[in-house]
């Protein structure tokens, strides 16, 4: 998928002006946050679990080679095959080869962010295969020809009305307007596909070294129909997803459901190990796992290793004021919100995703809710430093920063200049006390007004106050 993060400013501005998108975002905003808060209030051990989970992830990352090799051996013991992909192109080629060998015409898919990351659908379609997303949210955006706007709720930006129109146009059936009817129609259409599918592709939330299993969680059961009814089951997963044992997976599952959807557990947790056994009467006859590196090993060695702890729960975006205002598409790739603002520059380059780390307000809510305690604001700050060091910061801003540093080190000058600026801005603000356009910060003032200062600096007011109080 083409990375469009370079257009962030423009697309964010458009998102703020889009009344339908704003309606959808408004509806979503409270839901995720309130449900998560209630689920966590119900579990006094939540913080202790977070501590354990962060520590366990660090242990796994310290021994990633060890656990991946143990995992591979266990998969092979149960008759499955493990494929290793250095990058997106290699991962696509491996999956295409598996599908070709299976003479696949229809491929059903469960939700998988890694498959979005490697652009799998387009590659399979270019081979003439029909690719069907079966998670309802993914199905909706596939019909609309759009990328996901949220890692847990990919169609969260769509209103019911838009989905009604989409289904009528694409299913060529009468227009439905009620949620149960829409869900039911998708169920009928996708049932056909499950039974037609030659290959079923799912993600892997966790890979268990102890048993050689891949684990997926869904609420719909689409991942299960996908992998049970097809002849071939392919798992596409990142190398950082391995865990030592089933008990370890359980620790993460307890955090994942609560952080993602505010549930104690999702409806279905499915642990898959190899192809169907000799005596089994259903299930796939082939089982493949594609382990995708695509930049992860490199992250392991540097300042951004903490990001590999991510379990893709989406809590950071649900609690991000910037994401809540503009939605996921403005971020320009498959991972939005705070986690996406760290990952996208690392995958796509500091320059191609320049605005993402800079859009952050550093309010810190993402770090507070992250179930594996990723210091997202620190990582975003580090990306800004690197952009600056690489000379990517725009000249105007660099000049301002240097100027600010000069005065910040010279308090007397700083105060004199602030006094001047406060009076100047007070004058510009005029009677309204609002400034609608400020040179050098057009992106910021386009969507909001800057309150003009009262005409006195903070220090002046503080001193005056101090005298009064004394």
């Amino acid at each position, binding site marked *: 998928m083409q990375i469009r993060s370079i257009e962030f400013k423009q697309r964010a501005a458009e998102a703020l002006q889009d009344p339908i998108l704003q309606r959808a975002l408004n509806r979503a905003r409270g839901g995720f946050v309130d449900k998560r808060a209630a689920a966590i209030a119900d579990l006094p051990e939540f913080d202790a679990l977070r501590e354990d989970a962060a520590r366990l992830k660090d242990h796994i990352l310290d021994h990633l080679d060890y656990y991946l090799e143990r995992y591979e051996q266990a998969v092979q013991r149960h008759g499955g095959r493990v494929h290793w992909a*250095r990058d997106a192109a290699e991962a696509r080629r491996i999956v295409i080869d598996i599908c070709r060998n299976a003479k696949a015409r229809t491929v059903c898919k469960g939700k998988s962010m890694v498959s979005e990351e490697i652009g799998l659908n387009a590659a399979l379609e270019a081979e003439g295969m029909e690719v069907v997303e079966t998670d309802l949210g993914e199905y909706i955006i596939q019909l609309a020809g759009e990328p996901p706007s949220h890692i847990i709720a990919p169609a969260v930006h769509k209103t019911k009305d838009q989905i009604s129109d989409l289904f009528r146009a694409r299913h060529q059936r009468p227009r439905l307007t009620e949620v149960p009817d829409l869900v039911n129609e998708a169920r009928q259409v996708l049932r056909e596909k499950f039974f037609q599918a030659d290959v079923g592709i799912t993600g892997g939330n966790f890979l268990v070294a102890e048993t*050689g299993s891949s684990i997926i969680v869904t609420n719909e059961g689409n991942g299960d129909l996908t992998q049970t009814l097809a002849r071939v089951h392919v798992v596409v997963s990142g190398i950082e997803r391995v865990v030592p044992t089933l008990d370890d997976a359980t620790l993460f599952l307890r955090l994942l459901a609560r952080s993602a959807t505010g549930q104690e557990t999702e409806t279905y947790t499915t642990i898959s190990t190899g192809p169907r056994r000799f005596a089994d009467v259903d299930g796939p006859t082939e089982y493949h796992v594609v382990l995708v*590196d695509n930049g992860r090993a490199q992250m392991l060695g*540097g300042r951004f290793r903490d990001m590999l702890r991510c379990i893709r729960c989406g809590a950071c975006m649900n609690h991000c004021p910037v994401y809540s205002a503009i939605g996921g598409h403005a971020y320009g790739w498959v991972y939005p919100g705070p986690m996406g603002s760290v990952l996208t520059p690392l995958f796509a380059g500091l320059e191609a995703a320049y605005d993402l780390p800079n859009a952050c307000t550093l309010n810190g809510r993402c770090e507070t809710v992250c179930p594996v305690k990723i210091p997202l604001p620190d990582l975003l700050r580090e990306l800004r430093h690197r952009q600056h060091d690489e000379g990517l910061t725009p000249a105007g801003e660099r000049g301002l920063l240097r100027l600010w540093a000069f005065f910040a080190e010279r308090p007397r000058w700083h105060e004199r200049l602030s006094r001047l600026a406060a009076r100047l801005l007070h004058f510009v603000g005029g009677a309204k006390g609002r400034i609608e356009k400020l040179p050098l910060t057009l992106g910021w003032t386009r969507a909001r007004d800057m309150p003009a200062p009262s005409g006195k600096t903070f220090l002046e007011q503080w001193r005056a106050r101090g005298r009064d109080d004394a």
Partner: protein
Amino acid sequence: MRDGRDAVLTAIRAALGRSANEANREVAPPARHVRPAVSDDLTERFQRKLESRAATVERLGSAHEVPGTVARYLQKWNMASRVVCAPSLAMLPWPKGSFDLHVGPARRDERVSITSCFAGVAETGSLVLLSTAATPTTLNFVPEHHLVVIRRDQIVRHFEDAWERLRRWNAENGMPRTVNVISGPSRTADIEQTIQLGAHGPRHVHVMIAEK
């Protein structure tokens, strides 16, 4: 594919500052994790949690009451008489003629299935089912109504306890292709966060807890 494997492992080891001959080192397993407190009446909690996730639950004296219970369930839903049954339950005293019982995996148009299960987890009200010749996986997902029989002594406190039982089972039988953990009927909230049951899997999950 060999080169992809070596390249990825080499890159990981380089990032960790480790050489290939350290690959076979021993790694001390991580310590036991915190577990959520779970109250003592496991059966009561198991039932309550399942019901909170839109499943229905019935308590039976013994598994012999299952056929009669199934007949009543079908009547209540006013449903056609075909029921597909996991081979593991074929030995129950099914009455002749009251409904049409088939034993095996699910057909495409199946509406009602009945299966046994491997364990129940009180922590979250979850059923654990294994894919075996006697318990095919399609029965858990294709029909609209999934009826499950569980013995009271199969209910454990935490998931970790279920995995302990699974390890013992595996030692004898080998790891099954699929372990399904199921907590109520299928659901989705993908249209405007409105919860709707029966997205792809069963619309109804009915659990019968037998004392023995």
